[in-house]
């Protein structure tokens, strides 16, 4: 099971965080700090896995953005890399050639996509098509609702 997923820039700025286990705020801050320092200090051409406490950290860099997640000991690291990759593919499909700014300005969309993709730290939907479809559907709903808004309700 994935414990958390973090996206941060090369400068260590956090762009997206998803916690699959409840943790107190202070703990989270500490983890984010640990992760950014650990991952950013890795040299090129080293492997994408790290040990941290009793968890395994799998990270991958896409352009200027680091995708980093924590796994339990029995999980498969390569598979986690592919999960990260699939998420990037999904973002790419939605935004069209995704870049860091897309995620900064449309972070809620990034969260939507993630929520369609993962649930409770486990993969929920692997198909690119169906995730794209459901994200699109909710976008449509939002647009029509905005028009409907000003009418009296009760």
């Amino acid at each position, binding site marked *: 099971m994935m414990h958390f997923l973090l996206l941060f820039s090369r400068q260590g700025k956090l762009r997206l965080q998803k916690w699959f286990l409840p943790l107190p705020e202070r703990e989270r801050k500490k983890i984010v700090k640990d992760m950014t320092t650990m991952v950013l200090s890795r040299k090129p051409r*080293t492997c994408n896995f790290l040990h941290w406490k009793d968890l395994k950290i799998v990270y991958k860099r896409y352009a200027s953005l680091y995708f980093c997640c924590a796994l339990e000991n029995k999980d498969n690291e390569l598979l986690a890399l592919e999960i990260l990759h*699939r998420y990037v593919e999904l973002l790419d499909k939605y935004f069209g050639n995704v870049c860091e700014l897309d995620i900064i300005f449309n972070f809620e969309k990034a969260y939507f996509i993630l929520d369609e993709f993962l649930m409770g730290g486990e993969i929920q939907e692997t198909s690119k098509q169906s995730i794209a479809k459901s994200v699109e559907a909710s976008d449509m709903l939002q647009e029509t*609702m905005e028009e409907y808004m000003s009418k009296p309700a009760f």
Partner: protein
Amino acid sequence: MSDVVEKTLTALPALFDSQTGAAKITNRLRQLIKSITELTSKHEEENLIKQELSAMKEQVSSPNTTMKQMREIMVRAMYCEMLGYDASFTYIHAIKLAQQGGVLEKREEENLIKQELSAMKEQVSSPNTTMKQMREIMVRAMYCEMLGYDASFTYIHAIKLAQQGGVLEKRVGTFTPHFHSSPYITSITHAQEIIRRKAVLALYKFYLIAPNQVQHIHAKFRKALCDKDPGVMTSSLHIYLQLIRESPDSYKDLTGSFVTILKQVVGGKLPLDFNYHSVPAPWLQIQLLRILSLLGKEDQSTSELMYEVLDESLRRAEMNHNITYAILYECVKAVYTIHPKAELLEKAARCIGNFVLSPKINLKYLGLKALTYVVQHDAKLALQHQMTIIECLDHSDFTIKRETLELLFRITNAQNVTVIVEKMLDFLRSCNDEHTIIHLVGKVAELAEKFAPDNSWFIQTMNDVFSIGGDLLQQDVPNNFLRLLAEGSESKEEDDQLRLYAVDSYLTVLKGHTSHLPQCFLQVMSWVLGEYAHLQESVDQREVIRLLTQLLDQRSVSSETRVWILSALTKISEGQTDLILDLAESLSSSQDTVLRQQAQELRHLSQESQLHEWALPRGAPWDGIEVDSSLSFLDGFVSEALAAGAAPYKPPHQRQEELCEDRALNLEPYGFSLPVSLSSCSITDRQSPTLLSVSSGLSGNSTELSQKAGCLILEGVKRVWGKDGYLPQKKRSTPPVDEPSAAVQPPGQQEAAERIEPRPDPLTQNQDKQQLASSLFVGLGVGSAMSLLGKSEAPPPRFRKKPHPHESSSSSSSGTSERSSDSSSRSSRNTTNSFLYGSLLEKEPATSISAFDHTPKSTTANGLAQNKDTKEDRRANTSQILGGDMVIVRPSTIQDKHPPSVSSDLTALLPADLKDLPHSDVISLTSDPSLSLSSCRLFRDEALLLVIFISNCTETVIKDVAVQLTCEELKTVSLRGNVVDCLEARSTSVCHYALLMDDPHTNVSFTGTVSYQTQPGHTNTLPFSGTLSTADFIRPLVVTTEEYGKLWLSLSHDVKQNLKLLTDAGDPLRTTLNSLKDALQLHVVDIIGSEGIVACRLLSGAPCLLHCRVNGTALAMWLRSPHPALPDCILYHCQRALAHH
């Protein structure tokens, strides 16, 4: 509450900004918040909120309110809720809104609820939250749940609340989880796949949180597994993986289905939607492979089902993509986990080659992991990849290096241990991650202990371990090391050599720079020096003392370490009074009380060399120390204090709990008060000695004891606080006795063993690697004794630990005695006359010791003081000296010179705390020419004490008397004195068992044996048996008539019977009841006219109520009890009692 307000205030602006057009909406809220923060008193705030709420109420019920306004009202309502006011009228509108509204509302609501949830989370975890607040939080949480948000953090509180609280809480507690799972249960059958999928995943999460709450829906899981949508099936596999991990046996029947599913997936039968980079459903495949490996583990028939599909998976996964490697890795693991099949193993091994040889670093990493896994089954596999492993060992990547060392750890044997440990230590020196260090250092210590080629290497490695691991080390590493040194192996000579090496190497370390050494290392060093410095004759003891004193002066040394050092100094200070007095003087003004106390002790001991010798003997068997962790020698004191009205002791955790309970509202109805007896305190926790305590009374193995002629005899003593227990370091410090001649070994052997150190040379690097490889992998291939299936056989560890006294069943009851007598006799006598002395001791008067009696009176009453033996004289002296300012605890002795024939006098032998208990007559159990056994039952409130008197009828000493009692129907909660080392002529020893009866039986019989030795090596056994009746376990239950009435209604099992009425006296009912009371220890609650009520219970357990009514010439008896069998038993005994009358 103000912090919540603050939090909201800081959080809200962000919320406004992120929402389109939200600024206008929330103007009123902003106003509200502003005015609230400007208010000064709680009262004003209350008024304001009340106004606000009534305004809101009007608004929501007005039909003209627009959606937007509604939303705004919701926000305000939520805020009021947050402040702790009731705005529950808005809930229903909120739900309406949520159902009608679009995504925007939902999102806004989501944000608000998240706020709400985090506020709640803070509240529930705060200890100051009262029960009432908690209840309110639960209601709010339920509301959030209702809206579909995850408030799972409240479940545990809800459950807690339900356990503690009253009816409302119970409803909340049961409601919340059901509420949570029930929509998912129903949505499992929802038409849309995605919803079914989510429901199954939610149930999985729920299963992880509260497994027993979803037990009733296991059938639904199966339904999900058979779902026509592969996605739902995939989700259900999470649950099954978890279930199978917990109990693989109960799901073996599903193996066939899993195999078919995997076959279909591998065969590409799934829709293309599930492909990932043209690999069919890789996540599903991996999940299935894991499940299969769990199912097939150590199960040949199940494994056979899956060979084919595993083969297929290995074959299909050819494509060069990460995801196929991920599948391959799981496949290889599965092949090596299930029952082996040679052909598959071969294929899997080839696959590992693909990983390890891959240029991609991630694959190499995974290859190393796979290798680490498979070498546990077949160590030879590492041989094929030795060069790669060597390369990885020098890899620049930390993670790869660590993984390689993990692999090397698995293939370590006696031949390559030096090289591997060297590599690990090198890695550790360059590592700065705490977790890695702790992890690896433990492994190094393990390897060193297991495979060390020689002493100097072992000591050197352990030095490295301590200095690198430092204070991060887990405590068991130094503990194990010290135990190994102290207990030693079979050969004394080797042990001493090892100790000598340790002393030498520590002296060298101490002579160098010491300020950087970790505390843990200093502690180890000071202990070893304290114990064994005397072994090294070439070094002046004064030098050792000087070095240790230097350490004491260092600023960096912690106070705990100072205590260690001071203990060491105390041990070696003998005869060096001049050095020590200064030190003791300077430390006796220390801030640290422990240190000060030790300094005092040090001063006393250094002035009294005899006392020193007695308290800190140099060399006594290591395993002979007894520490009474239960502090039973204080029993007398405790019971006196309790009798004087002191509160019984509560352990800290219990106090904590009670404190918590006090804080919370007590919603439980006042319990039915049952009498609590003082003596119930005395039975607590005598069964759990800690590691150090030696349970002496438990078994009587006899071979060892016959050798101990030269012992002071302390029989029947159970877990006595060590005689020297008042000195804290004594727990750890008892070096074995050494013969002076054997103690010192020529130091020349030290050089005999040299370490193999491969030195890197730039010119011949390749050759060097080859050499390293040969040294690393030596012993793996040769002989090829490793079987394919089993793990490689571990060579016998070099340092074989002696079985710890705890594990060994041999009796060590005389440990203390052996130690103390040794200590007093050792210095003045050499071995030959200690043998002589042994026979001398046997003529000493009989001393049979009871563990219960510790009054000073009996100490003086024992025969020791009058004894003119020189040794005893000295002992008396020392105890006088000690009596001055230190309290020495010594078990007292009772001398029993009573002839065993006078059985009625036997009860006089009962320990003081048992004497006052009501008891039955003494009956003879069995006897033979040398021993006679009699027993007596003592009725304690919470147990029956079966006391067995063992009397020696002969004029000679009987040794190793051990009583063993078995009774299937009863539970033995504690026993004392069942092993007696030495029973003197014409004396009696007392042993007792506390028995409990859980299920009533009319009569129970017990059997047992006594084994003893009249001559060494010749064991006699004497069987005995007896019966106990339920009547022995019945105790009066003191209740009032009202309580009786209440209790009567609450009991379920009843029995009615007519009994004989005793009509010989004036008042037949009263007479009958009184005679029953005498026979069965009943409590007559009340007698009203022709009716009488009587109460009793089974020990401190189930009550039984008796209702008696005179019915003509018979007594109609009606019994009720929560226990189904109890009334019958009591009735039986009543009948018997009346019949006998």
